[in-house]
Structures are given as C-alpha cells and as structure tokens.
C-alpha cells in the first residue's frame, strides 16, 4: 500500500470507519421507519448501536478537546493556531449544517403532516364502508337463502343427511356444507374440494350460540395457498321432527377472488393509512431523532477531522519549535525528522542544515577556544615555572596576570589586584608604599612607546634591599583589548652580592698578599733601627727615634690585624651545620657581655619553646659577637645604652633574631651600604664586621635586614629557617 494512503488510513481510518458504519446504520434505520418492515426487528439493535457509537464519537471528541486544553496550558507549540483553525472550521461547518438541520427538520415535520388529509381519509373510510356493505349484503343474502333451504329441507337433512348435504351444496352453490350435531359431532359434509379432508369445525363459542338457537353469518378469513381467502360462514341451527336433537348446518360460501382482491386492496390501503395516521407523531419523533443523530455525527466527525487535519498541518511547526527549543537549550545535535515532501518539509530540511552548520561552526569555535585555553595554560605553566617574575598589564595599565615569583619578589599577592587600574593601585592602596614607588618608577617607561626596555632597580622589601633587573616590553596587537605590557623581573640580588663578595674576596686576598709580605720586614727594620740607634742617640733624638719606631711597629701591627681581617673575610671556612638551640647559644654569648661594671646593659627577650635551627655554632658566635660589639660601639655616646636581643617565630618556618640598640640610628643613605665591606663611618675598625655578619647569615640560608631611622633605634633582624621533619639533622657541609 502507498505510504500516503497508509498514513491517511492510520490517522483518519478509525473515525472514517466509525462514521461510515454509523451513517449506514442511520440510513437503515431511516429505511426501516419508511416501512421496511423486513428489518423492523433490527431497529432497536440499530438504535442502541448508533447511540452507543455516537457516544463513543462524542467521548473521542471530548477527549481530544481535553487534550487540546492540556496542550494549551502547557503552551505546546502550534496549539494556538490549532485551536484557532479548529474554531473557524467548526463555525464554517457547523453553521451551514445547523441551518440545513433546521430546515430538514421543518421539511420532515411538514412532509409527514402533508401525508394526511381529510379527503383521503374520508375516501378510504367510504371505500371500506362500501366494501363492508357489499359483504354484509352478500352475507345477509346467503343467510336468507340458507335459512330458506333449512326450513324446506330440514327434516330430510335429519333423516338422510349425506344425500341432502350434497344436494344443498349444489343448490346453494356453496363451497362446503357440513351438518353437525349440537354436541359438535360431525354428521355429514359435502365439499367441492377434497372429501378426505374434514371441514373446519366452528369454534366452541359458535356451538354455544347454536345451542341457544341463534344463527350465525359472518365473513371470515383463512390462510390460503398464496394469500388469505375470505369466505362467508353461515350456521343455521334446527331440530328434527320429534325435537329429539338439535343440529347445525354450516355452509361455507367462497367470496369471489375478484371481490376479495378489491376488498383486500381497500382494506390494506385503509389499514396502512390508519397505521400511518396513528404513527404520525412517533414518526416525526423518530425522524427527528435520526436527523439529530446525523447532524451530531456529521458535526462531530467534521470537527474531529478538522482537528486532526489542523494538527497534521501544524505538526511541522511543532517539530520546528521543538528543534528551536532544543537549540536554545544548547543542543545542536538535534535533527528534526522530515515527514512531508512539501514546503514544510523543505523548511525542516533548511532548519536541519542551518543547525548542522551552526553546530559545526560552534564546534570549531569550541575547539579553537580549547586550543587557546591549552595554550594559555601552557603559557601560564611556563610563566609559573619561570625563575623570573612576570607581570602583565593591559593597554589601560590594568593588572592582568602575575606569577608566583613576581608575588614572591614584591611580597604581594597580585591576583588580588587583577583587573585594577595601575594608577588606581598607586593612589588607592597606600599599604604598598614600596610597590607604589616601583610602579611610579616604571610608569613613564610604560607610557612611552618603547618596544622594550631594561632597568636595574633596587627594591626595598620587608626582608631587605633587593636588586631587580626589570625588562619591559609592549605586547604587539591590533586590538587594544588584547594588547598590553609585559614586565619581567629578575631578582639579581644574590648574583650581584656574589659578584661583590667575589670581588671583595679577591681584593682582600691581594691586599693580604701584597701588604702582609712587606709588613714583617718593615717591623723588623723598625725594631733593628731602634736597637742599633738607641744606644747612639741621646736626648730628644733618642726619644724621637723611640717614638717613631714605636709608631711604625704599632701601625704595622694594626695593619697585620687588618690584613688578617681581610684574610678571614676572603677565606671562608666550611660551615658545619648542626642542630642548634639558638636561645641557649645567645644566652651563652650574652653572659660574656653582662658586666655589672659596664656602662651598657644587655637584655634578652627570648621566646619559649625555641625551635631548633641547623647552624654552625662557631660562625654564629662570631655573628652575634660582631652585632653586639657593633651595638656597643654605636651606643658609646648614649647616656643609658641598652642592647636587646629578642627571638621569636614569624611563622612555622622562620626563626627570627632581633638585635637592637638605642643608639643614634643609621642614616638612610648609610643603610644602603652598611653591609658592604669597608663600609664604616667609624674612625676605627676594618669595616668588615657587618659584611661578615651578612656573609654568615647567607651561609645559613637566612636573611638579614636593617630597620633603622636616623636619631632612632637601630634594629638588625635576622631570619633563620627552622628545622622541619624533612630537614637533615645530621652534620652537613653546605655550599657557601
């Protein structure tokens, strides 16, 4: 079967079938009402069947309408147009059908009423009366004739009944003559037909009449071969001579066939007219009912057809709406089925193509985005793992990205300021004065259109001065949103320091080598000179010689000490790290300086539960001696000099030692070179004390910083890394 036909049957088949069957049923009912009596027995069944069928169709209609209502509430795509078209179609079909129904009803009622009129009824009544009169006359004549014959032949009938009944039949021209006794016993009979068949006896009621000596004459009917035969039955009661018995003579006169046919036609017409006349009201009711059912069935079927047709019409719209909704939810894999080969089918196909292309483009964008993300992550990983700090700014000098090294160098979490304008940061956040200074320094370089630039910058951090090598570059881009600046920061403090240390060590070594060698001959020469000339000179000359040689020997000794200091600075011994309680070490050292006679006071503020530190005790002793001596020297002119050593932990990883004095403080300019060799403003001293201190601190992977302002206290803060469970607790030689 063709798919279109199958689809049609599938969608409309059941309703077509039901409607057709019900229509056929209604037609048959209508025919039965119009005197198709052969199917009369099925009328009630058909009526109930049709009513049930219409009930089913109505149920289907209500169910469909209910479904439409639910779809309307759910706002199913296409439901509004379905309802609108259904309503319009219902009105278009319903109004003409209702008009036709009304006029049909009128015609039926008028038509049935017009079947009957007075003239016809009177004519039929007159015809019946005429036939009746004719038959009555005939019956009366037959009765009189038979009565006359019985009066004449009554005695003979009683004495020789067999002969007389035959004779009477001939004389009366009757079909049958039968003689009965009043006790219903048949005595004799004569028939023009088969004599072997006994005549039909009168009924008991007639014999009752006979016994009462009453005659009987009437037209009766009996079933014939082809049709009912009418005959005149005449019964005459009589008695014999001695009145010993009562007899009844029954004579059957056959009414002529021509007369019977005429009478039958009149009778049938009259009977039919009467029947129809009586059934006029019920007929109108029945036809009205059938017409109403036809109207209802037609209307309901039309509405159901319309709804189905409109639903089929709007199905592609629903399909497209469903697809659009899926796409709006982000499902681009949807592919709508194409069931129609019309314009809606083309539209659905175009929709599918469009979605496919969008999906393809979206996938490409997604892939590109993923690749970009991968590249971004790759770059971020690179930047994160760089040993240099990286800061990126957009074209509007807003911070975009930073890596951990940058955060570490500046001791600031730049991610907290991501997206903030560069200048904003400068003026809004005053808690970052050094950072503000840094940005102020590089800001002019960023604003100029230099392709790339480099800069060495000394940054004062919480843990001291850092020497930074800063490289800046403008990111090339056509779009301002994408472009910006990249700033690469290298902390070259250690490198520079190492270079300085190496240089100073070399200088110290050379000085020691070049100066130390001639010092001994100078000293020996001065001593010899004093020894040789002391005896030869007298007076002032002798005193001068002695004073001069003493000065030479003294200065040589001083120079030897200086050379030894340089030598010590240049020759760094290996440090032997061991688990050390710094509090105890500091206490041991402090005892040496706590002289009640001394001008100064040394106070300790040591934390409880001091963590262990890996340290070379000998080197640390030198460190603390240097710092304490430095403090004592710095407070020489202070009225009540006080030196304080304080220990604490800034976190779980670092042990802090703070050596402070209440001396005059260190000038801001001097703070920059205070840890450099030969950097001293004292009249005495080698200028290596603090340089050695810093060197020892660095040998212990610590950090020293100075917190001092002129005319205020001076505070050296040393940070040592604490021991952790993973730290090797055995004696370790570390690189210096």
């Amino acid at each position, binding site marked *: 079967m063709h798919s279109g036909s199958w689809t049609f049957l599938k969608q409309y088949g059941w309703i077509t079938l039901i409607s057709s069957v019900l229509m056929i049923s209604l037609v048959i009912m209508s025919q039965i009402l119009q005197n198709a009596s052969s199917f009369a027995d099925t009328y009630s069944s058909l*009526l109930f069947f049709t009513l049930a069928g219409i009930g089913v169709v109505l149920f289907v209609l209500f169910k469909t309408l209910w479904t439409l209502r639910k779809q309307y509430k759910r706002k199913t795509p296409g439901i509004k147009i379905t309802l609108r078209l259904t309503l319009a179609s219902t009105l278009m079909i319903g109004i003409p059908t209702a008009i036709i129904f009304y006029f049909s009803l009128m015609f039926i009622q008028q038509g049935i009423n017009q079947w009957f009129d007075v003239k016809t009824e009177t004519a039929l009544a007159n015809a019946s009366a005429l*036939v009746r009169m004719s038959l009555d006359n005939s019956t009366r004549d037959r009765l009189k004739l038979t009565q006359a014959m019985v009066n004449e032949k009554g005695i003979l009938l009683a004495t020789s009944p067999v002969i007389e009944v035959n004779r009477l039949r001939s004389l009366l021209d009757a079909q049958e003559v039968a003689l009965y006794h009043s006790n219903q016993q048949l005595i004799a009979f004569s028939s023009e037909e088969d004599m072997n068949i006994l005549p039909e006896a009168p009924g008991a*009621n007639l014999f009752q009449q006979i016994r009462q000596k009453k005659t009987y004459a009437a*037209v009766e*009917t009996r079933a014939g071969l082809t049709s009912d035969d009418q005959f005149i039955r005449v019964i005459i009661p009589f008695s014999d001579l001695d009145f010993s018995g009562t007899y009844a003579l029954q004579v059957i006169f056959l009414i002529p066939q021509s007369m019977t046919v005429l009478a039958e036609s*009149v*009778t049938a017409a009259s009977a039919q007219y009467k029947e129809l006349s009586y059934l006029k*009201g019920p007929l109108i*009711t029945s036809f009205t009912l059938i017409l109403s059912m036809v109207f209802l069935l037609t209307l309901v079927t039309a509405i159901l057809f319309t709804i189905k047709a409109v639903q089929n019409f709007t199905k592609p719209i629903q399909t497209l709406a469903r697809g659009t909704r899926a796409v709006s939810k982000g499902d681009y894999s949807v592919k709508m089925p194409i069931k129609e080969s019309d314009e809606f089918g083309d539209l659905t196909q175009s929709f599918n193509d469009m979605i496919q292309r969008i999906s393809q483009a979206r996938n490409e964008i997604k892939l590109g985005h993923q690749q970009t993300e991968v590249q971004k992550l790759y770059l971020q990983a690179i930047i994160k793992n760089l040993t240099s700090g990286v800061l990126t700014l957009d074209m509007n000098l807003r911070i975009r990205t930073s890596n951990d090294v940058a955060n570490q160098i500046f001791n600031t979490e730049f991610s907290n300021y991501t997206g903030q304008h560069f200048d904003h940061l400068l003026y809004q956040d005053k808690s970052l004065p050094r950072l503000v200074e840094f940005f102020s320094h590089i800001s002019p370089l960023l604003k100029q259109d230099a392709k790339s630039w480099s800069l060495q910058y000394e940054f004062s951090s919480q843990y001291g001065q850092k020497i930074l090598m800063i490289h800046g570059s403008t990111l090339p881009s056509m779009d301002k949103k994408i472009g910006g600046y990249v700033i690469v920061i290298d902390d070259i403090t250690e490198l520079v320091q190492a270079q300085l240390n190496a240089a100073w060590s070399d200088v110290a070594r050379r000085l020691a080598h070049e100066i130390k060698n001639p010092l001994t001959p100078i000293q020996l020469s001065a001593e010899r000179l004093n020894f040789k000339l002391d005896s030869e000179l007298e007076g002032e000359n002798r005193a001068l010689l002695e004073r001069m040689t003493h000065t030479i020997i003294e200065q040589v000794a001083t120079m030897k000490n200086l050379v030894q200091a340089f030598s010590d600075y240049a020759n760094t011994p290996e440090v032997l790290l061991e688990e050390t309680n710094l509090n105890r070490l500091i206490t041991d050292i402090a005892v040496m300086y706590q002289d009640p006679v001394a001008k100064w006071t040394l106070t300790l503020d040591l934390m409880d539960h001091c963590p262990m530190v890996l340290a070379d005790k000998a080197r640390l002793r030198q460190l603390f001696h240097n710092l304490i001596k430095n403090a004592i020297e710095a407070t020489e002119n202070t009225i009540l000099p006080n030196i304080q050593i304080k220990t604490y932990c800034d976190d779980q990883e670092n042990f802090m030692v703070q050596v402070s004095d209440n001396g005059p403080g260190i000038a801001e300019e001097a703070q920059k070179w205070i840890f450099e060799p030969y950097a001293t403003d004292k009249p005495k001293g080698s200028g290596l004390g603090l340089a050695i201190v810093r060197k020892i601190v660095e040998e212990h992977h610590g950090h020293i910083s100075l917190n001092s302002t002129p005319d205020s206290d001076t505070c050296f803060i040393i940070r040592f890394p604490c021991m952790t469970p993973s730290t090797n607790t055995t004696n370790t030689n570390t690189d210096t």
Partner: protein
Amino acid sequence: MPFSPPPLLALCLFLLSYSNFAFSKNAIHFSYLKEVFQNEQLALNAVVDFKLPEQVLDAIQHDIPILFKTEIVLFEKRDFFGFQIEQTQKKIEYYTELYAYGVNRYYVLYNHRNHKRQTFPTLKNALQTLGTLQALPVVNQSVLDPEKHYFFKIRISLDKWKLPPPLFIEALIETYWQLDSDWQEITIQLPKSG
C-alpha cells in the same frame, strides 16, 4: 407543529424511563390461576383480565399489531445441603398477536406457537379468548415425582420490542406501553399415586 423533543432530551428521557421500569398497573391481571391434571398431563387453567390503556386500544384500532408474550416456567424445589434451590423443569414461551383486520373490523388472534388464527367480531371477545387458558398442557405427569415439590410461574406481557419501529421510542418512554402481569406463582399439588 407537533412537539418533537430534542435528541439529547429524548435520550435522557429514554434512559430515565428505562431505569425506572414503570408499568401500567393492573393492565394485565390474573383473576384465576389453577393447575389441573387431565389426560395424564399437567395443565393450566387461567383467566387473565386485560384492561388495556386507551393509547394501546387506539393503536389497535389503527391497525397496529400488538404482541403479547406468555411465559410459563415449571420449577422443581430442591434441598441442596440445607439451601432451597429452584431448578427449571420446563419452560414454555409463545407469542400471541392481536390485530384488527378487514373492513368489518375483525379482531384476530394469531398464535405464533401453533399458528392458529382466530377471528373475533369485537376486541372484548378477542381479549377474553387471549386471557383464557383452558387446560393448557405443560408437562407430562409421568415426569413429575410425587415426592418432590413443584411450582409454576406464569407471566403475560406486551412485547414492546416487537412494536412498529416508529413506536419504539414512545414505547420506551411512555408507561402505557409497559404492560406486564409480572410473575404469578402457584404451588402444584400432585395427586397421590395409587
């Protein structure tokens, strides 16, 4: 214009009437009912009075054939583990058609069971004959057990399903077409054997 109820109203009326099962009371009434034993047969004598409503008489006068259904059921009472049960022994059902005929307005009774037709000059005669059951044989006496108990049920009703189709709706709605004698019951007194 004659009144024609709307179809839905007609349907409602039909359902209403059909649920009520209203009948014209005493239209068919048994005035005598007795069993007789005659010629080794259990027979039935009955006299039924017919007081047909005007509308039904009018229909007969207008040549509408009316069918009366006569149902006779013979039951045997049995004791089944203490429960009284009734078992049908014999069931007789036949239709008798009453109609007016001919120019002389004879009234004909046609028995559909034995196809016997009787003509009467008046409707009263016809109804008398219809209502007279004289020695109507039901069952052979030999099949009846004297030790058991039997009873009859008889009912005569107008069969509205056999009315002409146009009258069908009216017959369903109107009570004057609901003619039924309802079941009449008599217990049979079996003659003592020997």
